[in-house]
């Protein structure tokens, strides 16, 4: 499989994402500079974490106007898979590829820790391989990860089953204490209506090897890898 990992000025999880895709899963991953206007021949796009453009103005606000994001818009409109992690999630929201916005953590503090994440639905390319009831332990590291959308949007997210991940405690309950940033409905990640674009604040790419304290993030990678494989098989047939 061929992945494009976007690289904006001050992306800082780009190396981690490439490492996971290449060295953990054995696929080809290419860093794509934000000034590129074409994605080339790729199966999926990964927008990594970081503080693109210094997080100045608003997180993700400036990055979304990069030339490469125009190409991502087209790619997504054609059904291509796009996953945004942390700053990547923020960029996707700013770009309008995902609804809502990510604002300052309610505590006003940068949170850097492992959290428990529950997969709300298996019905997406990003969650298909997560076993039922599995709680994933994945690190977060952000100051602006509080998911916000107006009530109408939230109820649409719910009725369309677009909420993919929620912050929970070790019993799987979406409590206020388990919510590290004040997100509405404990939302950790969502997808678009078409289900081919997703974003989440936790860092699955930093939880793909037991050596790093957890390998639960693999489940997200395995989900979309599996989805892409099936898609390619279907195409070939």
């Amino acid at each position, binding site marked *: 499989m061929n992945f494009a990992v976007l690289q904006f*000025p*001050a992306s*800082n*999880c780009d*190396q981690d994402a490439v*490492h996971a895709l290449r*060295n953990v899963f054995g696929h080809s991953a290419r*860093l794509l*500079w934000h*000034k590129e206007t074409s994605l080339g021949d790729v199966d999926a796009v990964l927008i990594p*974490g*970081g*503080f693109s*453009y*210094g*997080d*100045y103005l608003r997180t993700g606000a400036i990055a979304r106007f990069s030339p490469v994001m125009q190409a991502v818009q087209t790619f997504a409109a054609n059904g291509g898979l796009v996953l945004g992690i942390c700053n990547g999630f923020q960029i996707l929201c700013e770009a309008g590829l995902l609804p809502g916005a990510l604002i300052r953590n309610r505590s006003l503090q*940068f*949170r*850097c*820790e*492992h959290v428990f994440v529950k997969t709300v639905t298996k019905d997406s390319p990003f969650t298909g391989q997560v076993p039922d009831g599995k709680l994933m332990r994945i*690190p977060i*590291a952000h*100051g602006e990860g509080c998911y916000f959308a107006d009530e109408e949007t939230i109820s649409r997210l719910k009725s369309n089953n677009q909420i993919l991940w929620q912050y929970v405690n070790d019993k799987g309950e979406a409590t206020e204490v388990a919510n590290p940033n004040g997100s509405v409905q404990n939302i950790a990640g969502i997808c678009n209506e078409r289900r081919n674009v997703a974003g989440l604040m936790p860092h699955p790419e*930093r939880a793909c090897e037991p*050596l*790093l*304290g957890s390998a639960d993030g693999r489940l997200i990678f395995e989900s979309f890898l599996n989805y892409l494989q099936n898609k390619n098989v279907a195409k070939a047939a």
Partner: protein
Amino acid sequence: MSDPAITPELIKQHGLTPDEFERIKGILGREPNYTELGIFSVMWSEHCSYKNSRPLLKTFPTKSPKILVGAGEENAGIIDIGDGLAIAFKIESHNHPSAVEPFQGAATGVGGIIRDIFTMGARPVCAVDSLRFGELTSPEVRRLFSGVVSGIAHYGNCFGIPTIAGEVYFDKVYEGNPLVNAFCLGVLRHDQIARGAAKGIGNPVFYVGPATGRDGLAGAAFASQDLTEESAEQQRGAVQVGDPFMEKLVMEACLELLATDAVAGIQDMGAAGLTCSTCETAARAGTGIEIDLSKVPQRAPNMTPYEIMLSESQERMLIIVKKGREAEVQRIFDKWDLPWAEIGFVTDSSRMVVKNHGQPVADIPASKLADEAPIYQREFKEPEYLKPVRAFTLNEVPDTQDAAGNLKTCSPGQPLPRRTGFIANTIIWCAMARRSSQALMLR
């Protein structure tokens, strides 16, 4: 605006003693002009020359087969960790700026130490801090403390470089004089080690990073200056403000550039900015260097040579490029949208020659300026409490397979919890670096 006359008063304001001034005259064979006086004053300050602490620093152990670059030799020391890999690390203080503006002072301290690490060719992976404050009962101390801690956190978080440990003590003696030490560690392969030497006569000298402003200019030096119509504030110079975004770009561009083999020497502009970086690179290589200040990007209007040479604007680098490879360098800086300028070249004169629009404004033997600051032996006495401390040996610490777990238990009840994940991660990162160079290594 003409330069002020060199009076005993002005010399004193520059922190130079009459003896030191005589020494300067001996080196130059004449009286220094105003710009040269400023240059000597910063290079011979404690901060840059360690004229008081050098004899003590010399007592540290600095020789071992594992040491690839020794302490004080370059921008950071480098130690071999096996498998062709090495770690570069250094700790540095940012006390004074933090006392003036705790958040920005501490943030730029972290910025400075990160620069020292990637200047060596290493990719920084973690930071540590060591802090001293007065008693927390004082509101002023609380303000300094919270400002410093958030400044350190902010810069590191932006960069994605975790602050994995720290220590702090509160005591009356630090009232009004906090100590803020920042440490950074980076990983590199032996063949990636870069040097801060201006090698190769005729090689062009590049300036990269944001424009030079009046940031961090010492107040004393300005006291005697005539106030023009510009506001007093502009005259006084400004607090250094950190821009982690800019530094991240500078770092990525420099690491990309170092991988091309187009670089002959590289040094960050830390304390005493252009002054320090030009004379030290020349001194290390035994060469001379000539720059023209009119080519230096400037943020404020009407900056004098004195101001440009002494500015402490952050996130700037000096790069000596192999002649003929300029285009590659320019391509990489342009890719990262970084301001750059070719400001001079390496000479065989052993002198640091500074011009402004072609007119000489300073001409000083580089190595005398960089390496021949006076050294003072201060009186000292060993405090009582050190005796039991010195009796401690490392053998008293139990061996462990679980370094991360141990670190956790080492800090009973201290506010580490939110960070412990990172502590574990980083220790493991270092372990990983040893195992597979691919995992961490740069493009």
